[in-house]
């Protein structure tokens, strides 16, 4: 325990771009092309045995001048071995697509819909790629840093103010 990121780097020396560990929180930045293969290994290899996808989030690095702009972050957990690993995938704005993990962990379904809804990162192969929090008529993606904080898209236009009372 405590060196899953190193183990992963040994298995995928080319696909794992960076690793990092802080007080037992191990993280690996991986190439998007190898995400599915790595995820498959994490789930099936007895060394990792990651049977739970605990969380999946998007991050917009616009203000931090990240290149590429977005990251998708996956948190895995093994119930049997009681260990965790975090994967990150960097995504370009122009090509904001990541393969879906719904085939491996069904819990990815709603998480990925949320990341699509809020950040506009598409998950290729997702069985139900709709928005999940906002309504279908909503334009844009609300948690992108360049979405104006005061922009409103009401479904019901505000009533005219009257003074009859």
């Amino acid at each position, binding site marked *: 325990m405590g060196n899953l990121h190193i183990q992963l780097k040994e298995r995928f020396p080319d696909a794992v771009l960076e690793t990092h560990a802080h007080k037992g929180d191990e993280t690996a930045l991986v190439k998007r092309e190898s995400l599915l293969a790595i995820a498959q290994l994490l789930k099936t290899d007895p060394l990792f045995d990651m049977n739970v996808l605990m969380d999946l989030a998007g991050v917009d690095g616009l203000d931090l001048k990240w290149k590429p702009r977005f990251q998708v972050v996956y948190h895995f957990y093994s119930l049997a071995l009681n260990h965790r690993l975090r994967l990150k995938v960097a995504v370009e704005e122009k090509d904001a697509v990541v393969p879906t993990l719904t085939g491996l962990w069904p819990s990815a379904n709603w998480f990925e819909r949320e990341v699509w809804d809020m950040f506009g990162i598409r998950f290729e192969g997702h069985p139900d790629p709709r928005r999940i*929090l906002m*309504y279908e008529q909503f334009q844009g993606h609300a948690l992108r840093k360049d979405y104006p*904080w005061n922009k*409103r898209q*009401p*479904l019901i236009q505000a009533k005219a103010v009257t003074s009859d009372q």
Partner: protein
Amino acid sequence: MGEKGFKVMTQNSIQSNESGGYLTSRLNDMIGWARKYSIFQYPFVTACCGMEYMSTACSHYDVDRFGAGLPRFSPRQSDVLFVVGTISHKMAPVLKQIYDQMADPKWVVAFGVCTCTGGFYDNYATVQGIDTVIPVDVYIPGCPPRPENVLDGLMKLQEKIQGQKQEV
């Protein structure tokens, strides 16, 4: 039946005079009196304010004193729409539909700052005051409002019901 000189018997305020117990009232006032003490509420509860609504509605604060003790969960059977909690833009059409389904006469209470103005949710998802969607009669601020504040709002609503022209 004319508005003036309508005779009504009431149990608790029988005036005795020579001809027996009766008092005179005006139809408008009498209907107002009846309506303000038979408030059937529709609790449209969406968020944390709901807890405070429940605490107000339970025996400790006893809204039955104001004739508002029986929530109805059908808009067809209710008189006052209590909008309790944050209303998102996604929810607004539902709220509007519930309001439209209520039979006249009807009133609306905005319970908590979220319903009054959007509260601190000044963001892409939240309706900035339900009065942009439906008319509101009484605003009860607070995040959440204390039960005393809710009762105050309820009494203000009663005053309003009593004072208005009664459509029949």
